[in-house]
């Protein structure tokens, strides 16, 4: 479907990513879901094609496109039928890298961006903790001054890419007396730093191709040169990056919905029951038609929100609308897609079975629906 938000360049990028997903990802996802990890060679291949430089300014070797490009990119990754593969990439490009490109110093960019763009250096963000998810202000990890640097202590939970990342942006309390919003700082912590360990890969309902780990910081020392942006400004950086994160995640969710609908329409046109293809049943085709209408509407809202962000608007209400709407919608869509696949929809070999498990996180991760609805309500 054409959209006023998608110009020739974005359409060309969409086609290039779609082709890559179809040829390099889809045929392999069953294996990656089993091994629990996307191979590094895939990430490096994506890096060599410039996929990780989509949002990186031209002066740093990227193509310097905006939020709308992230949406296009994420949307095609979402069509891979493996949410775990999509999220491995998106955590790197759209959740973690923006900390460096938006708030990092020139010296930090020179140090890490080249490796991040080739895929040699994969990144993650460490904000969430056992007792602090959507409520970011509740984090307990601390960083106290120590020489010309900081000493970090704490535990980070549910960290996507945690076990494979070479660089993790860690949020820690740097001023225990201040409100969290004025006492939190972001630190870049490199893999191999003494006291910094990924303890275990967590087993999940879905996203099986994605590594999710618990990270432990046990007296980890990092120099001042690893502080991202300004000390005590971390909370604002987290809030600012949430906007990009949420629309990228929901763009991927739209891709998941579209892929699931396309596969289901193809299936019910072939599958015969009671003497005719299931498509002849009005209840089935009309439900799919309504889901398509909802997905088409939601897609344009995501595009529009990305466009608002590209215009410099804060768009918190619209981002929250995308997150709440698409997070829930993707669950309804996959429920129906599994239902219309019948018994086959419950089988591990059927992609919609995996997608059904994958989409469950869409209404939880990156801001739960209930939190998002209150963000909208505050602005009504």
């Amino acid at each position, binding site marked *: 479907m054409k959209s006023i938000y998608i110009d*020739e*360049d974005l*359409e*060309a*990028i969409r*086609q*290039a990513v779609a*082709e*890559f997903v179809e040829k390099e990802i889809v045929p392999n996802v069953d294996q990656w879901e089993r091994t629990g990890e996307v191979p590094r060679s895939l990430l490096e291949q994506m890096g*060599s*094609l*410039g*996929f990780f*430089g*989509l949002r990186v300014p031209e002066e740093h070797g*990227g*193509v310097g496109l905006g939020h709308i490009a992230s949406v296009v990119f994420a949307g095609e990754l979402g069509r891979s039928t493996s949410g775990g593969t999509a999220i491995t990439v998106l955590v790197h490009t759209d959740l973690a890298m923006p900390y460096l490109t938006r708030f990092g110093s020139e010296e930090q960019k020179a140090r890490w961006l080249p490796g991040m763009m080739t895929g040699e250096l994969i990144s993650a963000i460490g904000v969430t903790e056992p007792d602090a998810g959507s409520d970011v202000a509740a984090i307990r990890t601390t960083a106290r001054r120590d020489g010309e640097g900081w000493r970090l202590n704490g535990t980070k939970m549910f960290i996507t890419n945690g076990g494979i990342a070479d660089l993790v942006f860690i949020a820690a309390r740097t001023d225990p007396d201040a409100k969290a919003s004025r006492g939190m700082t972001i630190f870049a912590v490199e893999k191999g730093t003494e006291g910094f360990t990924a303890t275990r890969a967590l087993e999940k309902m879905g996203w099986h191709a994605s590594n999710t780990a618990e990270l432990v910081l046990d007296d980890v020392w990092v120099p001042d040169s690893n502080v991202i942006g300004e000390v005590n400004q971390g909370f604002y950086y987290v809030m600012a990056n949430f906007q990009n994160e949420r629309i990228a995640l929901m763009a991927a969710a739209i891709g998941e919905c579209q892929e699931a609908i396309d596969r289901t329409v193809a299936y019910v046109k072939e599958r015969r029951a009671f003497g005719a293809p299931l498509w002849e049943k009005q209840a089935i085709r009309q439900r799919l038609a309504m889901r398509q209408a909802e997905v088409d509407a939601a897609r344009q809202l995501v595009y529009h929100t990305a466009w608002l962000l590209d215009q410099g608007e804060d768009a918190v209400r619209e981002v929250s609308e995308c997150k709440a709407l698409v997070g829930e919608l993707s669950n309804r869509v996959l429920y129906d897609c599994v239902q219309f696949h019948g018994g086959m929809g419950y089988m591990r070999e059927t992609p919609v079975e995996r997608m059904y498990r994958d989409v469950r996180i869409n209404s939880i991760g990156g801001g739960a629906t209930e939190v998002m609805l209150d963000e909208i309500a505050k602005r009504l």
Partner: protein
Amino acid sequence: MRVVACVKQIPDPSTPYKLEEGTGWLLRPNDQVLDDTDRYGVEMGLQIAQANGGTLTLVSMGPTGSAQGIRQALAMGADKAVIVDDATLRGADALTTARVLAAAIGKEGFDLVITGTESTDGYAGVVPQMLAELLGVPSLTYATSVEASSDQVKIHRQTVTGYDVVTSGLPAVLSVTAGVVEPRYPTFKGIMDAKKKPLETLTLADLGIEAGPAQEVTGVNPAPEREAGRKIEDDGSAHLAIIELLEQKKVI
């Protein structure tokens, strides 16, 4: 070294094609895609041009439209594109196409012209040979592997039973089969740079030639439904029947 790759924009093969009422000619939408078989020629051209310090120019005939398909080939790394776009070319047959491409390529200058074996929307499969004749240079066709230097090209030419080794000096026309090389994916940078590359549009007047008579489509019939396969019941000798079938198909 001046390498030219012939490319064609075709309607997206994943969408149903529409024919014009009356003429039976293919209706071409504004957004067309690069013919997949052309990617092999473009990749071959890029490799040869890069290895010999040359340039790769794309030459195409047909309605420019949004030029999306041409940009796909430019995004792979070609240096520039020339499109002959003229209303009088509607319904052009293979010979007219070859004449037009030869005129544009001759104007551009070349050491090696690379084509696919046939287009995915026309399937005539004779343009490469006609092109070589009209340009007055040797034609090396159906290449499954290619070695090229600045003054010579050597190929494995696919045959029914295997391959012939064919060598020629340059200039020459070379047609490559799908799979001769693995076409590269465009990089994001390549995509963004593609629209800044020169894209020249020529008419027949610019080339000083006229279109030949258009093709006359005398009838269009739907492809026959695929018939059910043959079932061989195993009464203990089914393997013999299968072997006989495979021998008939020259598989064994």
